[in-house]
C-alpha cells in the first residue's frame, strides 16, 4: 500500500459513487433493480473483506451476521410492529452483539479451527431459525408487508418499495460503508490489522494487543454485514432461512476473492462480475453452482489476488 495520495484514492471512490448515481438514470429497469440488489450485497462482501482481506481471518460463518441483520430488522417489523428506522437499527444492533459474543469465543481458535468454529456457530444459528419456525417462518421465510416498508420523515413518507427510493437507499448505504472502509484501512488501526495478517507474533512483540484488535475487527465486520442484511429485509421485503445457510457464507468469500481481497473496491467488482456471469450463463444453463464451483477453483489456482488485486500489483500501486 503506498502512501502517495490520499486525494487520489478519495477522488476514485467518490467517482465510483458518482458513477453509480448517474447509472440510476440511464439503466434499463431490469438492471436498475439488479444493481440495487448488488449494492446491498456488496456491502455484505465489504464487511466480509474487512476480516478476510485485511486481517486474514477466513470465516465460514458470515451468513450468521447477515442473517442477524435480516431477521433483526424483519422480525422487529413483522412481530413487534416497529418502524423502519428503528428496525434498521435493531438489525444492526443484533449483528453487533452477536459478533461480539462469537468473536470472544471463536478468536480463541486459530487457523483451520477458526473456520470450523465460525461455520458451526453459523449452523447453530441456522438451525435456531428452523427450530423457532413459529416466529421466523422457518424454511418458507416471511414477507415483510409492503405498507410497513415506508419511511416516515415528518410530513413526507418514503416508500421503500419504489424502485428509485430503493436504489438511492442502497446507494447511500453502499457509499457510507465504502467510505468507512476506506477510512478504516487507511487509518493507524488499519495498518495494525494488516500487520496482524502478515505476522501476528511480530505484531504482538511490538506491543500491540492483537486479540482485542482482532475482536474489534470481527465486530466491525459483523456489524457491516448485519447492516447489509437489515437493508435487504427492508428494501426487498423478504426474510428467509436460506440467507443464513452455509452456502450464503461462502458467497461473500467468492465475491471478495474474485474482486480482490484487501482492496476497498474489490468486493463491489467481484459482486457485479459474479452476478453478471450468473445472469449471462443462466441464459444457457441452469447449472449455476457448476460455474460457481469452477470459478472458485480457477481463482484459487491461477488468480489468487483477484481482479483488482492483480491490477494493483501490476499497474496501479496506489489503489487502497
Amino acid at each position: 500500500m503506498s502512501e502517495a495520495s490520499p486525494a487520489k484514492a478519495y477522488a476514485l471512490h467518490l467517482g465510483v459513487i458518482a458513477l453509480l448515481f448517474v447509472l440510476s438514470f440511464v439503466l434499463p429497469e431490469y438492471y436498475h433493480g439488479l444493481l440495487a440488489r448488488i449494492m446491498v450485497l456488496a456491502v455484505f462482501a465489504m464487511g466480509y473483506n474487512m476480516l478476510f482481506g485485511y486481517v486474514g481471518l477466513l470465516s465460514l460463518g458470515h451468513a450468521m451476521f447477515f442473517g442477524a441483520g435480516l431477521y433483526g430488522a424483519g422480525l422487529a417489523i413483522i412481530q413487534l410492529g416497529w418502524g423502519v428506522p428503528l428496525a434498521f437499527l435493531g438489525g444492526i444492533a443484533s449483528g453487533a452483539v452477536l459478533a461480539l459474543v462469537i468473536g470472544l469465543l471463536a478468536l480463541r481458535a486459530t487457523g483451520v479451527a477458526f473456520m470450523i468454529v465460525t461455520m458451526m456457530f453459523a449452523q447453530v444459528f441456522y438451525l435456531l431459525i428452523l427450530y423457532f419456525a413459529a416466529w421466523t417462518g422457518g424454511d418458507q421465510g416471511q414477507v415483510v408487508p409492503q405498507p410497513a416498508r415506508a419511511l416516515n420523515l415528518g410530513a413526507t413518507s418514503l416508500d421503500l418499495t419504489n424502485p428509485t427510493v430503493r436504489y438511492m437507499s442502497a446507494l447511500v448505504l453502499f457509499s457510507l460503508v465504502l467510505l468507512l472502509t476506506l477510512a478504516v484501512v487507511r487509518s493507524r488501526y488499519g495498518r495494525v490489522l494488516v500487520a496482524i495478517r502478515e505476522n501476528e507474533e511480530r505484531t504482538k512483540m511490538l506491543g500491540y494487543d492483537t486479540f482485542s484488535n482482532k475482536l474489534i475487527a470481527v465486530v466491525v465486520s459483523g456489524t457491516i454485514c448485519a447492516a447489509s442484511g437489515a437493508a435487504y429485509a427492508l428494501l426487498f421485503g423478504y426474510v428467509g432461512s436460506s440467507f443464513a445457510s452455509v452456502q450464503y457464507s461462502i458467497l461473500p468469500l467468492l465475491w471478495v476473492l474474485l474482486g480482490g481481497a484487501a482492496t476497498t473496491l474489490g468486493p463491489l467488482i467481484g459482486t457485479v462480475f459474479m452476478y453478471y456471469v450468473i445472469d449471462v450463463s443462466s441464459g444457457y444453463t441452469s447449472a449455476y453452482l457448476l460455474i460457481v464451483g469452477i470459478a472458485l477453483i480457477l481463482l484459487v489456482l491461477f488468480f489468487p489476488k483477484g481482479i483488482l488485486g492483480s491490477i494493483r500489483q501490476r499497474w496501479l500501486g496506489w489503489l487502497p
Partner: protein
Amino acid sequence: MHFGPHLLLAALEGLVTSAVLALTALGLSLVFGVMRVVNVAHGEFFMLGAVLAWAITSAIGGHPALGFLAALVIAPLIVGAIALVAERLVLRRLNYNPEATIVATIGMLYIIQQLALSFYGPEARPVEPPFSYRILLPWFGYSGYKLSIIAASALLLIATWLVLTRTRIGLIMRATQYDSETAQAFGIPVDRVYGGVFALGAMLAAIAAVLIVPISQAHYLMGQDPLLLSFIVVIIGGLGSLRGTVVAAVLIGLSDGIISMFFSPTLAKMIATLLVAMVLVFRPQGLFGTAAR
C-alpha cells in the same frame, strides 16, 4: 411401547448411525491428519457413493444381493478415482496450503453437487437391501440388515487399524503424517502418499454411503449432514486418532439417535453442533487427541 423398548430402539438406530459415521469420519480424519487438508467436499464423495450404488444396482438387476455387492466394490473404486484426479489436478498444485485447499474443496463440492443434480436428478431413490431378515428381539423385530451394517463397519475399522499399525503402508502414512519433510528425505514419495490418502478417504466415505443407502435412499443433497457430523466426530475424537474417532462416532450417533427419538431432530443437531464448537473453542486438540503439533 414403553420407555425401555423405546430406548433400545433409539440406541440401535443410534448405533447404525454411529457405524456409518465412524467410517465417513475416519476418511476425513485421515485426510486431515496426514495432509492437513480440510476436505469440505467429503460429504459429496459420500453422496457420490450412494448415487453410484443406485446406478449400479439398477443397471445390474437380478437378485438384490448381486447388485449390492457389485456396488460395494465398484462405487468406492469410481469415487476413489475421481478423488485421485481432483487431488492431482487441484490440491497438489496448491501445495496443500490449508486455506487455498478449503476454497478449492468448496469449489469441488459445488461441482459434484451440480453434476449429480444434472445427471441424476432431484429425486430421492431407493436401493433394495441385499437381504431382508428380521431378528426377533424381546419387544420387537429388528432389521437384520441394519445390524449387519454395524458388523461390516466394525470389520472395516479393524482392517484399517491393522493396515495403519501393522503394515509398511501404514508405517509410511504415519511417517508422512508425523513429519513430511523428513519422510521425503528418507525417500518416501510424499506426493504419492498424499494422492493415495485422499483417494482412500473418499473411498471410505463411499463405502459408508453404499452401506447406508438401502435404509435411507440416495439424494443429491445427502452429503451435507454427514459432512457436518464428520467434522464434529473428528474434532471431538482428536486429529488422526482412530480410537478417538470411533469413540466420538459412537457418542454422537447414540446421543443423536436418543435425543432425536425423544425430542426434535433439529434440537439434537443444534445441541451437538454447539457442544462441538465449544469443545473446539476450549480444547482445540479434541477430547481424546494428542496435543496439536
